């Protein structure tokens, strides 16, 4: 460990308020997540001994898992997630960042307050021909009104007909779950992957830059 990295922190996301603390399985094997605050905002972090964590499958999952735990912490938190790999030299550099980016994070927290992100991927069963436009329309019609917003995500496979993320109010979660169940039941020829809740990765966009 470099001497100047012994107090390093790995940040997962930003919430309002302080006093977040929970046991976890974080990036590089960290076991405790806690908050580092500046005024009304807190970054949720774990200790780490490098400023350049390796993007292994295990670490990528750990990053997501901590964020999902945070999302459900203390009855449910609104979280602005950070991308993988945000490590800071010490608490002071992190607090400086929070001070500089407070307006942007505050705005983002307002935009996604009380919401979670849900993901929906739809594929045709192997070898089955389907009307792709009709499937897309059916998805938009059924789920559009249950979400505050949605994004068309990357169709990274030729098999994918739909890859959408939905920003959904926590109170509409049950209705959304039910709609997914109904959609699956009505479309035997389709495969549906329903994921989440996630922090709203696709609905906040804050550039932090290299000021760690």
């Amino acid at each position, binding site marked *: 460990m470099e001497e100047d990295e012994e107090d390093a922190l790995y940040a997962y996301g930003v919430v309002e308020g302080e006093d977040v603390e929970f046991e976890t399985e974080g990036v590089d094997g960290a076991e405790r997540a806690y908050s580092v605050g500046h005024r009304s905002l807190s970054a949720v972090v774990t200790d780490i001994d490098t400023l350049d964590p390796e993007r292994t499958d295990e670490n990528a999952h750990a990053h997501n898992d901590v964020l999902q735990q945070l999302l459900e912490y203390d009855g449910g938190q609104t979280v602005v997630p950070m991308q993988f790999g945000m490590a800071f030299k010490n608490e002071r550099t992190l607090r400086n960042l929070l001070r500089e980016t407070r307006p942007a994070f505050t705005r983002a927290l307002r935009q996604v307050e009380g919401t979670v992100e849900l993901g929906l991927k739809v594929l045709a069963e192997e070898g089955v021909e389907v009307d792709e436009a009709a499937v897309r329309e059916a998805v938009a019609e059924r789920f559009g009104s249950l979400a505050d917003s949605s994004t068309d995500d990357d169709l990274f496979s030729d098999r994918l007909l739909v890859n959408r993320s939905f920003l959904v109010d926590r109170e509409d979660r049950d209705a959304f779950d039910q709609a997914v169940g109904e959609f699956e039941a009505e479309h035997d020829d389709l*495969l549906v992957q329903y994921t989440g809740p996630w922090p709203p990765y696709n609905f906040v966009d804050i550039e932090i830059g290299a000021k760690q």
Partner: protein
Amino acid sequence: MIIVDDLLVRPFFSILNSIHALALEELYDAEAIRDDIKENQLLYDLGERSEDEYERRKTELEAELRVAEMAREQLSGKQIQVRE
């Protein structure tokens, strides 16, 4: 004569360079390999691909990705040399 030769030869090298660049682009398309890795994961998660097949494909694709990233790093910013 020298001028005529030069005019004839230059476009030829330029085309060769482009073809070479396109071939490298396709061979070392890290983005396409990342997409294949995501597709492999998705088909496994949906139960369409067996665990053995998923693991085999994953190992294969990750090796391809390492090669592609290494090749890209070495080629970036360098002129492609075409031997006469």
